[in-house]
């Protein structure tokens, strides 16, 4: 019930990709996406290679087609925006099914779609094989300031609690005849959002009390970081190195 959405990004598994230290995975994913973005849009073959790499990784981690496809839905608004480019961009026009499409616009559309899809696929593989506590430890290991990772941790921890409160409040409203599908009744939603804000603020104070009671004095204790072996780094980083080589080759071949 509560909590499914938080874990909806992670798929439990035992693959080597799951076992890889999170900091290695985060760094690899980051560098890989950089290479994708730096690749010239004309190099179709390069994008094909990237896609093959990512799909193989997803298959290796046994993420499943359905799992990946449903998580790709988040891209839809970007796709819709990109589909407008050929109609609104200027420059030379090409005729397609009786429509005059901008050549520049078509290239821009392809560029956005290809790179956004590959970037999203990378993050789905990363999140699908790394649970949230591990992800936070990974950021800590990469020396992201502890205060930021602590804030992320609190946010994720209490997202569930707050959504649960909101859900219960909505059920209570509906139980007393509230019909949220009628737009004229938007006001109770807005009011309950305000109530949730105040409640969360008060909860924040209680959490602070509980922290102070266990010796908190302004600094979060460091998280327990497991070091990654040189071999793990080497194997994992070969991936972005390959991607960078492809990007470089694509530029040279142009």
């Amino acid at each position, binding site marked *: 019930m509560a909590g499914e959405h938080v874990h909806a990004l992670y798929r439990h598994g035992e693959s080597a990709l799951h076992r890889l230290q999170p900091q290695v995975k985060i760094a690899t994913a980051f560098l890989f996406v950089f290479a994708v973005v730096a690749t010239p849009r004309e190099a179709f073959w390069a994008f094909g290679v990237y896609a093959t790499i990512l799909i193989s990784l997803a298959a290796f981690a046994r993420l499943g087609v359905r799992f990946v496809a449903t998580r790709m839905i988040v891209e839809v608004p970007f796709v819709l925006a990109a589909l407008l480019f050929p109609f609104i961009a200027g420059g030379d026009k090409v005729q397609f099914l009786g429509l005059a499409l901008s050549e520049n616009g078509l290239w821009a559309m392809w560029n956005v779609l290809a790179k956004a899809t590959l970037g999203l696929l990378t993050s789905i593989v990363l999140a699908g094989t790394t649970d*949230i506590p591990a992800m936070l430890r990974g950021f800590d290991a990469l020396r992201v300031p502890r205060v930021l990772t602590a804030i992320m941790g609190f946010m994720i*921890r209490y997202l569930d609690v707050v959504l649960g409160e909101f859900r219960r409040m909505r059920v209570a409203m509906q139980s007393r005849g509230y019909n949220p599908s009628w737009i004229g009744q938007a006001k109770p939603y807005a009011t309950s959002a305000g109530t949730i804000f105040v409640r969360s603020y008060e909860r924040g104070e209680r959490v602070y009390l509980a922290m102070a*009671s266990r010796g908190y004095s302004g600094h979060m204790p460091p998280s*327990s970081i497991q070091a990654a072996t040189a071999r793990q780094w080497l194997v994992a980083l070969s991936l972005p190195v390959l991607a960078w080589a492809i990007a470089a080759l694509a530029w040279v071949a142009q």
Partner: protein
Amino acid sequence: MSVPTIAVDDLRFAYPDGTPALRGIDLHIHPGERVALLGPNGAGKTTLILHMNGIHMPQQGTVAVSGLELSQESVMEVRRRVGIVFQDPDDQLFMPTVREDVEFGPRNLGLEGPALDRRVDDALEAMEVPDLVDRPPNHLSFGQKRRVAISGVLAMEPEILVLDEPTSNLDPASRRELATALNRLDTTQLIVTHDLPFAYEMCPRSVVIDKGAIVANGATAEILGDEALLRQHRLELPYGFSVTPNA
């Protein structure tokens, strides 16, 4: 007599608007004791326990923990000695996993490595939830959350465990499991509760507080057997439940 684990003497406290909350509390709890703190809503129970670890500082009177008087200088040591478990376990479990949460207190005390691991294991073992160690708190049942919250406090190895409404919202089986685990602990305990049968089961001594003052202090059986006293302070035994004094 031994040095009391908690010694509260003539403690007075008023809220910023002048409303008095505590009107001269005297309460001593000795090592190994298990005491119930009873009283109606708004009696000052929570205000009193927030004085025991220096979340509130005494405006008048003193609080001492095993002989150490509460002051700005001693507050961190007092917080180590007095472990408070708050009512809503969601307020208490704020770290991403159970392990990290139970580690939070001992890490603040500077523990790490095997000593830290031992604390975590012992604390979870004491509450009989060692298998939850790698779970995120949002996936636990309410009863599990409550026991993990207590583990997080036990990991600080406090001299006294203060539990605020430990049985609230628990189903009867979870309540039973909690009672068993708490019964097994050697730690001195102060249990704040509206659950009078639980107080009767767990605590040989009870203290009743009403309108900021202690109105009764004695054997739990005597207090729960005194119908007039209970009625006067808005305390009620569940239907069909009765306690015979000196039983």
